């Protein structure tokens, strides 16, 4: 982008800064989870405040004893939001495939988030099993966005077998610690030919901005919003933070200096 453009044209440019996943175009780069909220109404309000276009959802058994308990889709309309079914809680490829086949039948979507966990303490992915599950799902016609470690070598493998988005963790799920290893995230972004989204570990607005400044295509978060004292306001904060980080990345930051450099000219002093 040339630096001559006026602010107005600029806004144009930015409003045109969209990204694509599995053939769909999105202008929001913030994907939010739908867990841990006080209730579905708060969840829906947060989705509005976040300006989200995609929400992750889990697949679970219906409650037979109370079939009329509130349902997610009565609050968050699948026609307005892209539902991204995840496999949270799955520890094997088979569980993941089975879960997502049910999701596909329930919702009719083939865009899914794969998540095969390695253990319950870290909720880190089991990467070899994730790789295997991704292959099964892709063979079965799914579009797989994959939760993974920040290991660039494994990220490359996942792209090679056909995953449509790479989603390395910033820090342990629900930890709120922010990007722990910016070098690995940067390496993953540099080598990727598909969208890279930071998934899990963001704790506050600056964490999301930092992830985007590294060049991520988007950020996925849940706890940072749902567990804020004021989830709705934090959702809005995250919307701004993701835009801020994205624009800063596109704008190209100033170089860092070890010493000072005056902002006011020294000439013409009285």
């Amino acid at each position: 982008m040339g630096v001559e453009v006026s602010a107005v044209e600029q806004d144009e440019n930015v409003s045109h800064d969209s990204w694509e996943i599995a053939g769909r175009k999105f202008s929001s780069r913030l994907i939010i989870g739908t867990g841990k909220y006080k209730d579905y109404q708060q969840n829906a309000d947060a989705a509005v405040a976040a300006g989200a276009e995609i929400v992750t959802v889990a697949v679970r058994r219906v409650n037979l004893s109370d079939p009329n308990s509130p349902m997610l889709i009565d609050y968050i309309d699948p026609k307005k939001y892209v539902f991204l079914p995840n496999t949270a809680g799955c520890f094997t490829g088979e569980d993941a495939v089975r879960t997502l086949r049910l999701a596909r039948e329930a919702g009719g979507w083939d865009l899914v988030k794969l998540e095969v966990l390695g253990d319950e303490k870290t909720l880190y992915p089991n990467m070899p099993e994730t790789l295997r599950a991704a292959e099964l799902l892709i063979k079965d016609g799914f579009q797989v966005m994959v939760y993974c470690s920040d290991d660039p070598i494994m990220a490359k493998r996942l792209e090679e077998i056909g995953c449509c988005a790479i989603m390395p963790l910033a820090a342990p799920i629900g930890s709120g610690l922010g990007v722990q290893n910016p070098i690995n995230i940067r390496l993953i972004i540099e080598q990727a030919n598909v969208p890279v989204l930071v998934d899990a570990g963001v704790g506050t607005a600056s964490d999301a901005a930092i992830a985007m400044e590294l060049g991520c295509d988007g950020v996925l978060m849940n706890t940072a919003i749902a567990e804020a004292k004021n989830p709705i306001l934090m959702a809005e904060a995250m919307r701004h933070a993701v835009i801020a980080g994205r624009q800063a990345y596109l704008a190209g930051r100033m170089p860092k200096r070890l010493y000072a450099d005056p902002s006011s000219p020294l000439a013409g002093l009285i």
Partner: protein
Amino acid sequence: MSITVEINGEARRLEGPLSVAALLHLLDLPREKVALERNREIVPRSFYDTVMIEGGDRLEIVHFIGGG
């Protein structure tokens, strides 16, 4: 004639024969909001009226809930 099936891990006695559609109706579950697996095989929504539940069937009925 009554049959026993397992739904979401719990045993249930039902008056058969009945279709998947009839079962969902019986359970008061909106067919368009759930997905159903019968003996590890997904039953497409379009087959709900024709697929009949049989004794010993193991069924999973799921829907979307909040999740990260």
